[in-house]
């Protein structure tokens, strides 16, 4: 037994010896593989860090959340502090904080600050303080004296816009919107994301991880032709198939382990930059980016194992037969059926999840796994389709121009490019999948963001303030803003249903002034006229409505017209406009207008209107919220962005790196044929063009396969995760900008790879190189 282990070990060591002992060429190949595997390891470690990092964020967010007496489990403790949590936006960025008013000694102090701010005092996060120093409108929101910066232990990310503001004891009451607080942190269930968000994040992780796996596999093919020849030579002198596998494993494991450590080093070296990098609103403190150790160990060990497995699986017939017959090896014919089967299986699985076939399974984890596997299957199937297409193209295409002919023939015999191509397809398809997931999800959302809100915005009035004179003050102040044309009140009355069946069809009534309706495309407004924006209500039906004071208002549904600009209505009436809502012009029925105003609708000149209104409204009361569409649906998509966009960016870099590495490796492998071509008089310019053509064909095929694959996968994932209903399928959005961006990225990659490869090609075809070949 010991003898056998010793011989196995000797074979593996021989493989390592072949890697490290072959001079610069061998080391070069090992390093190229290490770079590929290392980049993948670094990305995986980053991806594995996102979960713990978000957990750490949630914990800090939870720790600073004021817990009021209404939460379960709170006893009749002495109230020492009044507080309220606030959210608003500035140019689409969330500005959050807490207003605090001490009600006695020993009041709890939230994390991140040394003491409670007194009335007229405020602590700002470093990013908010910096912003307030630069932007007048944001500074107007914080007229208090800044007494310090909020520490990192209270911030969810380095660039978070967060504050703790002190308010006077006169506002330490429920009428001012504050609540009695016993402590900070420990709100049960505060950090639990919803199931749809979990499913979307799972899909996004699968989408990002698939290309990484493909690039690891591609990295193991670096120097493959030389390795096949080398192993065949060893086979010739009597190495058995098992020995060859051990030797090949020795070769692969060296580069893979080196890559694994390189990746860990890259991850550790790159971590401090997390403080300065924020992608699509997502940022982490360096200390947050710490994968759980079992995951870290698994990645550092698993990536080399995957690389090893891939290297062994890729042992062509060189590993199976001895040298003599390798030279007879024809390019393997690629089969179509299993590629289509993979993609189809994945699509069926996604449809299965979408159709809720899994309902008989109780485990949500099972559904998550199913979704991840399905996404991977679809993407891998599509990726595998690309090499088949290249193969088909190379067999059928008989180009006349020599550079194109050379390019096409090389693709036919190349074993590395198809793998890189597959990776490229997955990267582009993944990007488009995410684009569809994000964009269609946003479009299906009923909310809006400040970037949409240009000429009309809505200021929601907190329930506690609706009855006071605050609304009038805000209306007056906002009207003073240059460019604001009108500020009108919006009232909402809800139907009183006799039973559940009736509740389903009774309309909600929104009372608006004609100035506000003009912003929704209404040109023929008159008092009492009504519009619907979804289903047509039952005209003449008698309904009992209830206003905010609780008063009942009998109402008969008048004839309605379809609201002309429903998108504008959605922006203006974000949280009230349901499908069955009826919009009524004010001025005809005083009973409908007796209740308090819910929303102040502001019409004005486009350009920064939301920020200007927010600056004024929030000085009156920070609860005055200028709507930015920060809804649960968008929060889900934010989770997807958190995972996907940074990951995809790094994966794209990995794709570029892999392409360059593979291209350089190919030039090395083809030195002889390049030299021969030069010797027989093929101009060097034609050889350079051939390189460009080769990359161009790969890029074109990648694009042709990836675009439909990405769009379909994105739609299926949305369906499967519940992010999109079947009837909303027509709303799947593919933006030309995203397609254009994908085309630009692919073209840039192609040109970059060609440019980086050309010096090596030039060296190989230089007359002095011919002598050596």
């Amino acid at each position: 037994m010991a003898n056998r282990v010793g011989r196995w070990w000797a074979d593996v060591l021989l493989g390592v010896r072949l890697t490290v002992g072959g001079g610069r060429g061998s080391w070069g190949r090992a390093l190229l593989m290490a770079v590929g595997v290392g980049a993948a390891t670094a990305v995986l470690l980053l991806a594995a860090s996102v979960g713990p990092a978000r957990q750490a964020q949630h914990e800090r967010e939870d720790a600073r959340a004021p817990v009021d007496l209404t939460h379960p489990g709170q006893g009749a403790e002495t109230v020492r502090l009044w507080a309220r949590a606030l959210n608003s936006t500035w140019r689409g960025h969330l500005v959050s904080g807490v207003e605090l008013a001490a009600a006695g000694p020993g009041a709890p102090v939230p994390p991140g600050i040394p003491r409670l701010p007194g009335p007229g005092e405020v602590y700002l996060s470093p990013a908010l303080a910096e912003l307030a120093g630069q932007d007048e409108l944001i500074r107007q929101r914080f007229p208090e004296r800044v007494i310090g910066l909020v520490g990192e232990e209270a911030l969810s990310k380095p660039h978070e816009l967060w504050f703790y503001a002190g308010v006077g004891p006169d506002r330490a009451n429920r009428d001012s919107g504050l609540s009695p607080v016993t402590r900070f942190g420990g709100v049960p269930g505060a950090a639990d994301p919803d199931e749809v968000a979990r499913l979307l994040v799972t899909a996004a992780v699968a989408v990002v991880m698939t290309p990484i796996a493909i690039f690891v596999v591609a990295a193991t093919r670096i120097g493959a032709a030389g390795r096949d020849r080398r192993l065949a030579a060893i086979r010739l002198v009597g190495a058995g198939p098992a020995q060859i596998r051990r030797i090949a494993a020795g070769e692969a494991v060296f580069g893979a382990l080196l890559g694994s450590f390189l990746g860990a080093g890259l991850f550790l070296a790159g971590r401090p930059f997390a403080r300065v990098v924020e992608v699509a609103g997502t940022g982490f403190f360096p200390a947050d980016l710490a994968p759980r150790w079992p995951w870290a160990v698994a990645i550092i060990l698993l990536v080399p194992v995957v690389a090893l497995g891939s290297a062994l699986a890729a042992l062509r017939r060189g590993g199976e037969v001895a040298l003599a017959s390798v030279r007879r090896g024809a390019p393997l014919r690629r089969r179509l059926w299993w590629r289509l089967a993979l993609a189809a299986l994945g699509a069926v699985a996604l449809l299965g999840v979408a159709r809720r076939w899994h309902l008989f399974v109780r485990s949500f984890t099972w559904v998550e796994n199913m979704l991840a596997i399905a996404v991977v299957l679809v993407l891998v199937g599509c990726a595998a389709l690309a090499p088949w297409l290249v193969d088909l193209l190379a067999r059928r295409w008989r180009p006349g121009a020599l550079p194109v002919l050379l390019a096409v023939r090389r693709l036919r015999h190349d074993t590395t490019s198809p793998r890189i191509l597959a990776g490229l397809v997955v990267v582009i398809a993944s990007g488009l999948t995410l684009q569809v997931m994000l964009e269609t999800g946003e479009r299906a959302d009923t909310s809006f963001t400040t970037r949409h809100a240009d000429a009309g915005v809505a200021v929601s009035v907190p329930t506690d303030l609706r009855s006071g004179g605050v609304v009038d003050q805000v209306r007056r102040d906002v009207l003073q803003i240059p460019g604001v044309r009108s500020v009108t009140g919006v009232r909402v009355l809800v139907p009183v249903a006799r039973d559940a069946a009736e509740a389903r069809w009774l309309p909600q009534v929104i009372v608006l002034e004609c100035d506000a309706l003009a912003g929704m495309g209404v040109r023929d407004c008159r008092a009492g006229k009504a519009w619907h924006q979804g289903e047509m209500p039952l005209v003449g039906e008698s309904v009992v409505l209830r206003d905010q004071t609780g008063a009942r208002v009998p109402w008969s549904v008048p004839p309605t017209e379809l609201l002309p600009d429903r998108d504008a209505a959605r922006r203006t009436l974000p949280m009230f406009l349901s499908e069955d809502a009826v919009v009524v012009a004010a001025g005809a029925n005083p009973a409908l207008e007796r209740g308090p105003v819910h929303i102040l609708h502001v019409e004005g000149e486009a350009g920064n209107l939301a920020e200007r209104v927010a600056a004024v409204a929030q000085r009156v009361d920070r609860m005055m919220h200028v709507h930015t569409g920060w809804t649960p649906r968008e929060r889900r998509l934010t989770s997807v962005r958190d995972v996907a966009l940074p990951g995809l960016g790094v994966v794209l870099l990995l794709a570029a790196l892999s392409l360059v590495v593979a291209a350089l490796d190919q030039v090395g492998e083809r030195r002889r044929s390049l030299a021969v071509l030069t010797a027989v008089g093929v101009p060097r310019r034609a050889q350079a063009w051939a390189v460009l053509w080769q990359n161009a064909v790969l890029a074109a095929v990648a694009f042709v396969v990836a675009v439909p694959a990405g769009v379909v996968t994105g739609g299926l994932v949305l369906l499967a995760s519940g992010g999109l209903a079947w009837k909303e399928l027509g709303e799947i959005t593919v933006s030309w900008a995203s397609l254009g961006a994908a085309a630009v990225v692919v073209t840039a990659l192609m040109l970059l790879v060609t440019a980086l490869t050309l010096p090596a090609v030039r060296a190989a075809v230089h007359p002095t190189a011919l002598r050596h070949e």
Partner: protein
Amino acid sequence: MTSATHPAAGTHESEKPEEDDAAPLLEAVGLRKSFGPTPALAGASVSVRPGEIIALMGPSGSGKSTLLHCLAGILVPDAGVVRYRGTEISALSETRRSALRRSEFGFVFQFGQLVPELSCLENVALPSRLGGMDRRAAERRAREWLDRLEVADLAGKRPGEISGGQGQRVAMARALVTGPRVVFADEPTGALDSLNGEHVMRSLVAAAAETGAAVVLVTHEPRVAAYSDREVVVRDGRTRDLSAEGGATGGAARER
């Protein structure tokens, strides 16, 4: 020269029983082999006696290399039988055929097929190490063979740093280091000039004679074939033994 002076002679003598010179050491009968629709062998037969040097001659594409690969157990014929010392090697498993190649056969091909990442010494020691021999012992034996073939000074060099003729002699050392009974040489001088070719052939024939190994030589050069005891012509996948027909007299070059 006696076998006692041969570096591997002790092993050869003690582990491998004496052969009956009259019985064929290696024999192929009615071999057929096709690559896709292209037939390479169409009923080829040949036999090799212990210590004999035979030349497989023929034009390019005639099937002579395929015949050699079938004889060596590299390829399995579609039909027909290859027997080595009475054992049908085409029926052996790949692992056992590998072991046979490692211990009983040696190979010298046109380009040497040395592993470029290993030094000449490591290349020569490779078959012994694959057979489980301790590194020092394997390298000691390899050095003896490099010395014997007058390329000891190349031990530390890699194949890329030496000339074609030197590479072929290193390949010969690698082929002979395990004391094989049969050396397969496929166009061993094909990539060499005539002077180097002569040198390599003399070394090969001398080393084979010294170890008692048979040599199966594939060549299309009469000058190289002249080193053989017997010439077999391969044409369109069929064989014709010229010496049996009294047409060719082998060994002319050796006698010069």
